[in-house]
Structures are given as structure tokens and as C-alpha cells.
């Protein structure tokens, strides 16, 4: 983390924000900003903050332990609750756990399935995980994915003579640009007009889906796609190929790389510091002279570009053309992942893989245990509720607390 004050503004800012950052959960108090919990604000101003190094170390250690123990405990509790659900439905819970493990993680075959499903979740989760640093709860992930996929297809079709690599670059660029602009609209509505970003993002999902349907039914429609209106297809040789001999496509690599870059951006750059400051206390950030508007717009652009890229991958690696299948609601699963990961970009990787594994095991629950098809949804819902509840447990246990200084 970059803590050596880079500008006088940053120093003022650190002073202004200290009270807010010292508490484990900064409630944002800016006008109209929603109250959300942000990542533990570890030592932002370490040289100036005062405590002796050993106690600081110990606090960080205990804090980290808390941050791991509580979600892990929550997942454990939800697994037990899910076991009751299975038992009520006539399946042996332990056999179900074994099947989930078998279908998700027990072999390389299972791992491939898990990773294939995890790939789009990572990119979609970042759409929620980035703006939340600013105190914005954006759930327009699906819209950005759909718009990104649609315009990536349009761009790919617009360059019929380009080489496969060039086509993919053009598609990825168009997908990221359009997805980014889409979420930037949400950020701009918030910043300039005070429109609630959660509601506008949610509603813009439906606008995006309507645009997709309009385009594939109208201007972009391949007339030979009679009963499932689709755009013209991207030629096979220009599609994103799987990695080596696996069934995993390159979307997974994009997802992991994006998570690492975002993590670095948020935690180790001045820009990330500005974002977290705005999210921590927007008034203090304004007083300190931070460019709240441009940071908001840029952060929203990055947030939207990533699901836009996920949309491009869906077209270029899976579907081959734009049609209603693009709207498979990966975006909503992304919101779940972002919250489970407590908005930490590196944790997003892990949680996406866990959720991917859960999704991959949905089939075996139906085929072997004859559980209803909504079972994975029930499990996801349980995990989500328990995790949200567990948020209220932070700071409740002495063992995770700093010893009296």
C-alpha cells in the first residue's frame, strides 16, 4: 500500500479520514451515498498513525484471521443448513456432500467443469466489487455483459478480413468499451443527478436486454436464423480457442488477470487510495480536494468494462453469435460472488471457483440424488443469507480484537 503522502491533499485527507478509517466498518455518510460496509481499512497512514509496530502486526494478524474465520464459518453453517434441506427432501446429506465434491473438485475432469463455470463469474463480480469502494452498490452487471457481448459481436463482424487475433482484439476492445460506458452512465447519473445507482443499474439491465433483442431481431439478424433470431456468426476459425487440450477457454485467464490487476489497483495505487477515501468519507474527500467526479466515472468505466469483456468471451468462446442466450444472468451470480468475497478482488477468484464448483455439481444432485432442479439455488441463497448475517459478527469476539495498547 502506498502510504507516503504523495501530495499535500493526501496528507490533509489522511488526517480528515482517520476517525472514519479507524473503525472497522466505515459507514459512508456522504449525501445520498448508500451505507455499505467496506473492506477493513488497514493502516492507511501507518507512519502517522502512531501504534507501535508489534501491536500493529498483531492486530493485522488477528484482523486477517477474523476475515478468514467468519466467512469460512458462515459457509460451514450454510453447508449444515443445506444438509437439513437435503434430508427433508429424502437425500442423505453426507452422500450429497460427497457428490458435490466429486462433481466439483475430485478430479481433473471435475476441475475443468468448475473452472469453465467460474470464468464469467470473476469478471462479473468485479463490476460490483470495484464501485463499492466508492460507496456505490452497482448491480448492473448483466446489462454490461449483454451490451459488451452485443457490441463485441458487431465489431467482430465489422472486420471480416482481419486475422483471428486482430478480430479478437477488436471484439475485446469493443466489448470493454461499451460495457464500460454502460456502467459509466450509472455512475454519471449518480454523480450528476443523484439517481440511486442500485436502482438505475438494475433497471438498465432490462434496457440492455431489450437492446439485445431489438438488435438481433432487427438490424443484426441473420435471416437464416428463423426460430432463434441471432446475429450473423463469428467464423469458427476466429473464435477463442480452448487452452491446450482442456475444455477451459481463455475467459478464465482473463478473469484471473483482471482480478489481480483490480486488486493491485485498489490496494496499491493512488487511484485506489482515492477510491477508498471517497468510499470512506465522501465529504472529507471533497474537502481534501479529491476529484470525486472523475474518480467515480473512471471507476465505473473499469467496473463495466470487465463484464463487457465477459460478454465478449461468451460470444467469442462459447456462443459464436449474439442472441438471447447471451442473457444467462451470469451478472447476478457475479453480485453474489462480490458480496461473498467481501469485495476483495483476490477473494473473488477463490469464491468464483467455489461457486463454479457448486454450479457444476447441480447436475449430479438432480441425476443421482433426484433433488429438485432448484436445489443449487437454495444452496446459493442459504450461503448468501448466512454470509450477510455473519457480517454482523465482526468485532464481536475478543480473540480477534487487538490487545489493549
Amino acid at each position, binding site marked *: 500500500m502506498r502510504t507516503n503522502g504523495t501530495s499535500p491533499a493526501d496528507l490533509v485527507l489522511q488526517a480528515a479520514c482517520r476517525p472514519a478509517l479507524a473503525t472497522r466498518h466505515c459507514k459512508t455518510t456522504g449525501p445520498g451515498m448508500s451505507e455499505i460496509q467496506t473492506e477493513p481499512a488497514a493502516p492507511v497512514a501507518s507512519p502517522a498513525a502512531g501504534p507501535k509496530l508489534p501491536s500493529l502486526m498483531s492486530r493485522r494478524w488477528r484482523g486477517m484471521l477474523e476475515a478468514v474465520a467468519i466467512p469460512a464459518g458462515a459457509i460451514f453453517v450454510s453447508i449444515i443448513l443445506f444438509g437439513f434441506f437435503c434430508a427433508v427432501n429424502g437425500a442423505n446429506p453426507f452422500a450429497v456432500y460427497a457428490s458435490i465434491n466429486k*462433481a466439483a473438485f475430485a478430479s481433473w*475432469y471435475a476441475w475443468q*467443469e468448475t473452472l*469453465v*463455470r467460474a470464468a464469467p463469474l470473476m469478471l462479473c463480480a468485479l463490476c460490483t466489487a470495484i464501485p463499492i469502494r466508492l460507496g456505490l452498490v452497482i448491480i448492473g452487471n448483466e446489462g454490461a455483459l449483454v451490451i459488451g457481448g452485443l457490441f463485441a459481436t458487431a465489431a467482430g463482424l465489422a472486420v471480416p478480413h482481419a486475422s483471428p487475433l486482430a478480430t479478437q482484439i477488436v471484439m475485446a476492445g469493443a466489448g470493454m468499451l461499451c460495457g464500460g460506458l454502460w456502467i459509466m452512465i450509472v455512475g454519471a447519473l449518480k454523480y450528476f443527478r443523484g439517481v440511486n445507482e442500485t436502482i438505475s443499474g438494475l433497471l438498465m439491465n432490462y434496457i440492455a436486454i*431489450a437492446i439485445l*433483442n431489438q438488435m438481433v*431481431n432487427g438490424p443484426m439478424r441473420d435471416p437464416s436464423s*428463423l*426460430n*432463434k*433470431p441471432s446475429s450473423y456468426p463469428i467464423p469458427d476459425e476466429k473464435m477463442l480457442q480452448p487452452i491446450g487440450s482442456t*475444455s477451459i477457454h481463455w475467459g478464465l485467464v482473463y478473469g484471473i488477470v483482471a482480478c489481480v490487476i483490480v486488486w493491485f489497483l485498489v490496494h496499491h495505487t493512488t487511484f485506489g487510495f482515492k477510491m477508498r477515501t471517497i468510499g470512506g468519507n465522501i465529504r472529507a474527500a471533497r474537502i481534501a480536494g479529491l476529484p470525486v467526479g472523475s474518480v467515480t466515472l473512471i471507476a465505473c468505466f473499469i467496473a463495466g468494462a470487465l463484464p463487457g469483456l465477459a460478454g465478449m468471451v*461468451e460470444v467469442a468462446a*462459447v*456462443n*459464436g453469435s449474439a*442472441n*438471447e*442466450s447471451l442473457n*444467462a*444472468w*451470469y451478472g447476478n451470480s457475479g453480485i453474489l460472488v462480490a458480496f461473498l468475497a467481501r469485495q476483495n478482488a483476490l477473494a473473488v477468484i477463490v469464491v468464483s471457483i467455489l461457486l463454479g464448483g457448486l*454450479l*457444476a455439481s*447441480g*447436475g*449430479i444432485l*438432480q*441425476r443421482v440424488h433426484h433433488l*429438485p*432442479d*432448484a436445489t443449487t439455488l437454495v444452496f446459493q441463497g442459504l450461503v448468501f443469507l448466512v454470509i450477510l448475517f455473519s457480517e454482523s459478527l465482526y468485532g464481536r469476539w475478543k480473540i480477534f480484537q487487538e490487545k489493549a495498547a
Partner: protein
Amino acid sequence: MKHFLSSLLIAATVACAALPSPTARAADDITMGFIYVGPKDDYGYNQAHAEGAAGVAKLPGIKTVEEASVPETIAVQETMKDMIVQDGATALFPTSFGYFDPHILKLAKQFPQVQFFHCGGMYVEGKHPKNVGSYFGYIDEAEYLSGIVAGLTSKTHKLGFIAAKPIPQVLRNINSFTLGARSVKPETTVQVIFTGDWSMPVKEAESANSLIDQGVDVLTCHVDSPKVIIATAEKRGIYCCGYHASQAAIAPKGYLTGAEWDWTHVYSYYADAVKAGKTLMDGSIPHLVRGGLKDGFVKLSPYGPAVSDEAKTAAEAAKARFMDGSMVVYKGELKDNTGAVVIPAGTEMKQQDINLEKMGWLVEGVIGSTK
């Protein structure tokens, strides 16, 4: 290895079929995998297929595996792969239209010994892998009969049709329903509302209410799950005709009849063929299988209590003509609802006519537009 396994299974299958004993051991059973895009109890498209799967599961020597609510994404590829590798399925029935391209095509290349049967009739000779086949029914024949019953039951002569998208399959159902109704009551109109997507319960309920407010007294639909529409019609005290599966249980008073699939019949045909060692690859199972009332692909729901004897007689008379093959629904001169002639006088388009599969118009008597 996978190929080896599946060829082994096929070999086992063939060997089993050759045995005279009717009680084949479970290990020699043929495994058929069924995949649905929505829940199995949706009172609609998926339920119709699930009922078909339940029908073949009763046959000796057949084992079925099922997975419901599988989206048209890479998830369906993984499901197909699991059914092949883990459950040993040798014949797959991924039933949603959107599973075909690219998902089934991709898997079919990976598993050339497994047969993929897709509902929708999209197979093109020479273009698609040899182990892919498709099947579909001329359900508009049953729609025509539904239209006759609706036309003779309606007192306002205004019928309502709530549809998902203006695509050829849907337009053909609307047109056949309308032609059926107008064949017995020429003054009948059919008001159409397109909701824009396959499953939009809220819009479907709103559309149903709005049509009823405009004086429509028989409602039907072409969406994935007719449940909401049928329930709304019953609640408002009007009549309705079902689609996909029977919704009579939802509307015991107002349900007249409905156009239903009979997938049990179709899947039993495939089960017998596969059990007898026939394959798509060697051509002993045709790549395109289609049929209507005559072939048992589609059927009419049993008539409800509100259907008059006159309506039953008229519908049965038309049905008899479908059964003996003398009925032609689309024949000239036929105008669309803008007044343009779409089928010139003297031209007959039989059910198999490829031009009917590109239908982009609404027949005279329909109020609505495909745009």
C-alpha cells in the same frame, strides 16, 4: 478412452437387444439423457418433454437420466458430457431449441458414438455431424382444431392469443388457430399480443387481463409456460385453450381443449430403434423425424365441460380429415392481415412444405403485427 467406453456401451447395447430375454440386467440398459431448459413442472414445454421421458422410463431395458433448468450456455455442454461420461448415456435428448447451435454440434463432434436427438428440426444434411438428428411435430394441426372449438364457443367472436416472439413457429400456430376458428365462424377475429420473451409471467398476466377487458372470451397462447394465462382466464370467468401440455387442472371450468405434444410416443419410437441397434450414423434412424396428429406427435387435450356437442362434432370431423391425410390448412387464395395475397389461388401448401417454415405473416382475421 471415452470413445472406447461409448463404443463398448453401444456394443453391449446391441448384444442386449439381440438377447431374447425380456429381463435384461440393469447394467445392459440403454441410458437416455433428457435435458430441459426450465423446471419439469412448468405446465408447459418442459413438462411435456418430462412427461415423455417418464413414459419411456417405464419401458423395459431403458434407463433415463434427467436434468432440468439447464441454461443455453456452456452449462448444457457440461451436462451432456456428464451424462455421457458419468452416466453412460448413449442417446441424448437436449430439448430446448437453443441447445442446438453451438452446444449440441460441438459435443457431437467430440462424442461421435453418442446419438444426439434435438427437438426443433434444425438438422441439415451435409452441414451437421452424422450423429445428430432432429424431431418436431406439426402442432399447428392441433391448434387448428383448438381454433374450431374456440370459434364455436366464443360469444363475442373475439379470441385472444398471447405469444412470445413473432418467429415462424409461433406465427404458424397463430395462423392455424385463426384459420380453424374462421373455418366455422368467419366473423371471428384473433387479437395477438407478443410479450417478447418465452417466460414473462407478469407481462403474460397483464396481456391476458387487457385482452379480456377488450371483450375477448377465449384465450390461448404460445409461451413456455401457459400457467399464468390459463389461471387468469379462469379467474376472470372466460374460456381458454391450452398449449404444450394439458392445463385442465388449472382451469377446470373454462378449459376447452388444447394443443399438446405427445413426446412419449416419439421417445418410445427412438427407444425402440436404439434398442434394436439402429443408429443415425448408419442411416437406420432418419435424421429428420416429423409428424402431426396422424403420426401421434401431437394430440388434443380431452374436451372440457364447456365444449358444446356442435363444437365437438366439428372438431372431430376436421380431425378425421387430418388423420386420413386429406386436410390441407394452408391453401390459396389466402390473404394476410394487410390484404396482401400470401398464397395464390390454386396453390396448396402441405404440412411438409418448407415455405411454411419461413412464415413471416399473420393471416387475415388476426389483429396484430409481426413488427
